[in-house]
């Protein structure tokens, strides 16, 4: 690719590792397709949803929430300072959703039937809605990111057509995101007798949505810091401070909702009396919500790259924990202990590596960062 | 069974002891549950809490082998509290009979009855007799107060079975015993019925027969024999095992419970003379006085035209037992072990797993020249020569495996525990080369006969004279295909001539027709019947041939569930035996709401079930006693017929945890045949009993400290040959297991699922631990006794070549009941260690 046009200095560091991880992930996926889920995972009748659902789907979708939050900020709320990160955020989201879809195809038992929900409609199913939203939103993201391609290959005619649809696409993206980000929570509305009361709530769709916004902002911040470091670009400190403030506000709303929800249900006492569930719940809340709020609240943290990175990483970790907890405490009733099998971990790691790899290649060969056109 | 399966629903109290119907006769529980829903009480007495116990109103735990103390305690309770049914007892049993004043019981003779011969280990029964009056009839005291009358002797005998003693022996808690006694004794009222369901848990003991005798006495005391919802009911272990005993499969009987001829009974007249009981009492029907008719008709059935007056009806051709000869299971395999047999047919059985002391059985098979294994599948018997610890090079036995077809691949009748013979049609043709048993026998017969025809031989007559008219014959005279209907008709029997009633001259039957009743059978060769009790099962009715066993009528005129038109029950379709005891001497039912029969005085006839004999009620001039199979016509509270005593007395099992019998100095049954050593010291050698080292036993020995018992589970059939290969069955019970109490498990550091080595003096097996509160330690004679339990449905062949556990009969001893020689597999001693 020596003669390919680049927009950033190719960064060979770590690329070999990424290729290896992706390659191993592909082999692990082949193992799953050859020998089945029983042989390749530690899932079973007691734990039908494992690591792949918890990370690749529930967390993956939430991690890609930066796409709609940043487009909303820039296009709907006209917050101009975030323009610089619109395209990276969309790229992250797009890659994220593609990875989610790959993860889903690996996880479902009949991969060749992945298209069934598109033609066999069962509109009362949350899963049906989620599949449709993800499909549509990935298309929207593809179109939102398409200008990067079109610019790269100088297809100005098409570019014009797309530009005309910018606002409809943005609005569609935000709406679809609301629907399915919340619906990932709505998955669990049907299990009042299974999911632990610390997590079960009729408002769980909204809790998922709000936490996805906070996570989206935090994730964009993390990715912005890391991208700048990787591509040796200056840190967007002003943007980071803004993202931090946004995340702090959203997290505060989330925390208030969560506590109010438990209080209304009269279940605040459960926070301390539920044994292992209490521990996991408190960890999730401390790491992902309370600690970040406390950090973000300090101006010096918001203005420090490392401070933002730390606080935002905590949000990422805490939200992923939340999705794990919701998934596994739904399935805890049978008393079966689940820890992912090696193959599951390799696939998941491979998918994350794939996302990072795709991001780095795109950032190198496509106009992702503003003002990076090189010849 | 004196009664029948459906009849359980008529009970007020159902006692299950020595059985486990929920697991081994699940369908019977349908009727138990019906009774329960109508308010009946259900009692289970067992060493372990079973699936039957789970349904019980009262569960009484007991140490294996202590049934007689528990039942003796019940007898004492009934007498002490005067809960017996006095009229019944006085009129219908020998309770009022006066016994020889020289008779003495174990209370006086330290565990023995009068007349014991130490050398011969048997009784001279001279003193076990009744006092006779000048007419040759037993002297009676209807007031039941004469100290020599049976009732007073019974009372005296069981006065030793106090609650304390019973509890001390059995380990059963006293409050539970009392609750049981109270509940069961409540059926002594005329309008109440109690029944008992028993199985191998009672029979497979050195005192097996006496276990059942004890219950029979209780049923007489409470007036529960012959009534709906009463009786003594053996739950037979296989669907057709009743049929097989009916048809004489045991060594000591011919079909229809005719005794097997002995060498000393040289001709038919002698046979009849020796086997026809006599009575001088005109009111006793004494049914066995017809013996001559039945044996003659039997000989006519099997030898046909060759059975003539001149040929003594072919009596000489029947095989004879030598005097004192016993060819029961243990004896047979002992003889085989000693090399006394050349060949052996293992037909539909798996002795290498089912035989007590199966290790000895396996060795015995190796002493044979040849063995024919007829079975649905190969089994541990057919493949014994490649079993564990066997080097095929050492085995010279030639084994022939003949594949038999299953019951659904052939037509014929089966007779269940209710004595109900039901005709079954064939569902599918036999698979592969498999054949029905009848076809295999047909082949065998034809070839053996041909050899005799060709070579003569020592005694060809028994074979050459046999009738064999079971279908069309080919040019060689071989039946091409056995027609089961013709076999069934031969069993029923024919009128070979026009037959007339000898007294009235009325014609009973036309020549050539099928016999309509065993009452029509003759001793002059004019009738045939392959099995007199089955006469009427396949009869001529209004000129037409009717297979009574194939009937499926659902009418229930009495409302008691007798279903007289459903199939056919022997004898003469009687559904409840001894039903004349269900009415008073005037023919009025004790319990009018559940009238089995009743006398219609206006029409001078019985209504309801087929009565035990057509005579009018006992009080009438021509009336008869109810227990027609007994020479004296009454129920035997005092039973001098048995080898080990007229009243059941408690003796410990051959292997037991106690040094001494709590009740007497006689530790074990004094009349059992010993294969090894002497009664009370396990240290003695084999020679004394004429046994082998394999027959060793260890009683009250610290090396084998735990009481063990064996049983079946719902999920497997007998030794498991038909179920272990069935993945669905094996999935439910996949491994040989050993059940034990948490207390024992704790003592030995055993966890659920642990692999255990269970050993007795005879051998050891692998078993997987099931630790459960359903087992509990017993307080016996002041010390703690642990009981363990093992199913016997496994074998080395499958699954996994024995790694899942071999047969628990490798542990069981060589000892049998004093009367029947049924092996004692329900109480023996083992040790349990982690493997």
């Amino acid at each position, binding site marked *: 690719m020596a003669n390919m046009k680049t927009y950033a200095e190719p960064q060979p560091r770590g690329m070999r590792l990424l290729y290896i991880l992706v390659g191993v992930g592909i082999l692990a996926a082949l193992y799953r397709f050859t020998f089945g*889920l029983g042989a390749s995972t530690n899932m*079973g009748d007691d734990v039908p949803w494992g690591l792949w659902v918890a990370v690749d789907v529930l967390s993956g979708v939430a991690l890609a929430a930066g796409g709609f939050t940043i487009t909303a900020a820039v296009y709907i709320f006209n917050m101009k300072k975030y323009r610089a990160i619109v395209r990276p955020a969309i790229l992250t989201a797009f890659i994220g959703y593609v990875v989610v879809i790959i993860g889903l195809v690996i996880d479902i038992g009949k991969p060749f039937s992945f298209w069934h929900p598109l033609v066999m409609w069962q509109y009362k*199913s949350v899963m049906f809605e989620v599949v449709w939203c993800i499909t549509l939103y990935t298309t929207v993201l593809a179109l939102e990111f398409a200008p990067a391609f079109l610019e790269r290959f100088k297809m100005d005619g098409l570019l014009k057509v797309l530009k005309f649809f910018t606002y409809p696409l943005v609005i569609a993206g935000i709406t679809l995101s609301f629907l399915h980000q919340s619906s990932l929570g709505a998955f669990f*509305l049907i299990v009042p007798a299974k999911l632990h009361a610390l997590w079960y709530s009729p408002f769980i769709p909204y809790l998922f949505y709000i936490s996805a916004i906070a996570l989206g902002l935090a994730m964009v911040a993390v990715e912005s810091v890391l991208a700048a470091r990787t591509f040796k670009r200056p840190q967007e400190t002003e943007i980071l401070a803004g993202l931090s403030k946004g995340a702090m506000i959203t997290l505060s709303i989330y925390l208030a909702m969560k506590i109010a929800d438990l209080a209304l249900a009269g279940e605040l006492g459960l926070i301390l009396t539920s044994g292992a569930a209490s521990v996991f719940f408190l960890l999730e809340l401390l790491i992902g919500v309370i600690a970040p709020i406390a950090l973000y609240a300090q101006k010096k943290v918001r203005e420090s790259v490392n401070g933002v990175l730390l606080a935002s990483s905590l949000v990422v970790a805490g939200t992923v924990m939340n999705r794990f907890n919701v998934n596994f405490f739904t399935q805890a009733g049978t008393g079966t202990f689940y820890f992912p099998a090696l193959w599951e971990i390799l696939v998941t790691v491979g998918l994350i590596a794939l996302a990072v790899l795709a991001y780095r290649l795109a950032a190198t060969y496509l106009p992702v960062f503003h003002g990076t056109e090189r010849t | 069974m004196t009664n029948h399966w459906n009849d359980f629903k008529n009970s007020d109290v159902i006692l299950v002891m020595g059985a486990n119907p929920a697991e081994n006769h*699940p369908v019977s529980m349908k009727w138990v549950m019906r009774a329960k829903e109508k308010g009946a009480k259900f009692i289970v007495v067992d060493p372990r809490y079973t699936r039957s116990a*789970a349904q019980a109103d009262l*569960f009484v735990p007991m140490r294996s082998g202590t049934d007689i103390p528990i039942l003796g305690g019940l007898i004492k309770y009934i007498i002490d509290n005067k809960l017996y049914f006095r009229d019944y007892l006085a009129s219908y049993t020998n309770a009022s009979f006066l016994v020889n004043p020289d008779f003495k019981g174990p209370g006086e003779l330290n565990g023995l009855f009068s007349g014991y011969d130490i050398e011969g280990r048997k009784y001279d029964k001279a003193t076990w007799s009744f006092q006779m009056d000048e007419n040759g009839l037993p002297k009676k005291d209807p007031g039941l107060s004469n100290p020599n009358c049976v009732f007073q002797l019974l009372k005296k005998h069981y006065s030793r079975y106090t609650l304390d003693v019973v509890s001390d022996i059995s380990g059963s808690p006293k409050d539970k015993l009392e609750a049981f006694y109270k509940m069961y004794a409540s059926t002594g009222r005329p309008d109440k019925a109690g029944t008992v369901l028993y199985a191998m848990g009672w029979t497979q003991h050195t005192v097996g027969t006496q276990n059942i005798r004890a219950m029979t006495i209780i049923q007489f005391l409470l007036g529960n024999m012959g009534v709906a919802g009463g009786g003594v009911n053996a739950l037979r272990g296989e669907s057709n095992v009743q049929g097989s005993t009916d048809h004489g499969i045991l060594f000591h009987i011919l079909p229809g419970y005719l005794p097997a001829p002995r060498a000393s009974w040289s001709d038919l007249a002698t046979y009849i003379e020796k086997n026809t009981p006599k009575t001088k009492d005109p009111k006793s029907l004494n049914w066995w006085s017809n013996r001559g008719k039945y044996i003659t008709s039997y000989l006519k059935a099997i030898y046909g035209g060759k059975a003539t007056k001149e040929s003594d009806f072919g009596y000489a051709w029947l095989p004879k037992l030598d005097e004192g000869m016993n060819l029961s299971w243990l004896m047979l395999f002992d003889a085989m072990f000693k090399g006394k047999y050349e060949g052996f047919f293992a037909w539909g059985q798996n002795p290498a797993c089912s035989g007590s002391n199966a290790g000895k059985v396996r060795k015995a098979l190796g002493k044979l020249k040849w063995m024919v294994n007829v079975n649905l599948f190969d089994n541990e018997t057919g493949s014994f020569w490649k079993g564990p610890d066997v080097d095929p090079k050492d085995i010279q036995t030639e084994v022939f495996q003949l594949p038999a077809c299953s019951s659904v691949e052939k037509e014929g009748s089966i007779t269940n525990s209710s004595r109900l013979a039901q005709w079954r049609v064939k569902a599918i043709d036999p698979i592969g080369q498999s054949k029905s048993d009848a076809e295999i026998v047909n082949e065998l017969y034809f070839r053996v006969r041909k050899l005799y025809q060709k070579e003569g031989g020592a005694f060809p007559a028994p074979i050459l004279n046999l009738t064999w008219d079971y279908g069309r014959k080919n040019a060689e005279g071989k039946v091409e295909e056995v027609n089961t209907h013709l076999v069934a008709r031969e069993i029923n029997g024919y009128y070979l001539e026009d037959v007339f009633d000898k007294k009235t001259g009325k014609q009973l039957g036309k020549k050539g027709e099928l016999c309509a009743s065993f009452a029509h059978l003759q001793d002059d060769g004019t009738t045939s019947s392959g099995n007199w009790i089955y006469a009427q099962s396949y009869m001529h009715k209004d000129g037409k041939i009717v297979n009574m066993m194939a009937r499926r009528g659902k009418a229930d005129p009495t409302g008691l569930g007798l279903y007289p038109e459903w199939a056919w029950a022997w004898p003469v379709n009687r559904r409840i035996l001894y039903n004349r005891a269900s009415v008073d001497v005037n023919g009025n039912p004790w319990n009018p709401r559940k009238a089995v029969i009743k006398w219609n005085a206006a029409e001078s006839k019985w209504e309801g079930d087929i009565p035990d004999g057509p005579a009018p009620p006992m009080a009438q001039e021509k009336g008869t006693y109810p227990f027609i199979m007994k020479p004296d016509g009454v129920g035997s509270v005092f039973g001098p017929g048995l080898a080990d005593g007229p009243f059941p007395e408690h003796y410990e099992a051959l292997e037991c945890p106690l040094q001494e019998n709590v009740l007497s100095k006689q530790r074990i049954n004094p009349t059992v045949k010993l294969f090894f050593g002497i009664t009370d010291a396990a240290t003695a050698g084999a020679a004394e009993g004429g046994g082998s080292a394999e027959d060793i036993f260890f009683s009250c020995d610290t090396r084998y400290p735990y009481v063990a018992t064996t049983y079946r589970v719902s999920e497997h059939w007998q030794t498991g040959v038909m179920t272990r290969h069935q*993945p669905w069955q094996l999935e439910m019970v996949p491994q040989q297991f050993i059940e034990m109490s948490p207390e024992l498990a704790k003592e030995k550091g055993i966890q659920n699922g642990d692999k255990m080595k269970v050993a007795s003096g005879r051998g050891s097996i692998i078993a997987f631990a099931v630790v459960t509160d359903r087992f509990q330690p017993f307080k016996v004679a002041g010390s703690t006794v642990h009981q363990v339990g093992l199913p016997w449905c496994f074998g080395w062949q499958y699954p996994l070549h024995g790694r899942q556990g071999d047969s628990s009969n490798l542990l069981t001893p060589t000892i049998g009941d004093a009367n029947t020689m049924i092996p004692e597999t329900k109480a023996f001693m083992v040790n349990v260690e982690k493997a």
Partner: protein
Amino acid sequence: MANNNSTSKGVLVDLTRCIGCRGCQVACKSWNERSAKPTFMHGTFTNPPKLNSETYTHINFVEKTVQDEPVWHFIKDQCMHCKDPACASACPVGALTKSPSGPVAYHYDRCIGCRYCMIACPFQIPKYEWEKSLFPWVRKCTFCSERIANNLVPACIKVCPTQVMQFGALDEVTAEAQKRLKNSPGKYVDHIYGKDEAGGTAWLYISHVPFEQIGLNTKIPAQRLPDLTWASLNKIPAAVGGFVVGLSLIAWFRNRGNGSGQSSPGKEK
């Protein structure tokens, strides 16, 4: 969804009558042509220990000690065939459907293997063919729908020797359950399990032992579980409308000064 109690078949399971013989377990395997999986004696007779793709029903042997006395209960477990099944509403492709005659039926041709039915089921019923690589089935009790359609009773009910189960119209068996509770006071726990759980099921249980002591989940709300999801899903049209209108208005309001529609995502002007 067909929830009519008079057209739907139902089964009353009277646990007081079960003797644990497991004829039902075998009859089910026989009729449904299921195989066996390797098992072990692990301390109880419950085998297989749990339902699986080859075992649609089994008897759960519940052993306890009450006042120093052993007690043993035999609990049949199989699909409850909810009136409004959570599994059917969860399935994105309609691979699980409630038939008017009662059975919750599975359609392999539609299934994608997402296993949301397994998550959604409050009774832990749908099981999965984990060993199959690309074409696994979700498996569960079929209510012997093909037998029912031919006027036969389900296989497990047919073989039961003690008539633990009564098969009939759902309203009939419900009435029978009520009758038994009324006629035998003190014999049963005063509750018909399945009458209200999860909005009602076609299989009803009555018992002499409190249900929570014999492994039945008594925390399942008396509510049609799909309603919980639907309460959220039915807001979608409004949400879509609200978002589109709201976002458009905000965008118009916030961008009114700088000539809307001129910028494209990611491109700095």
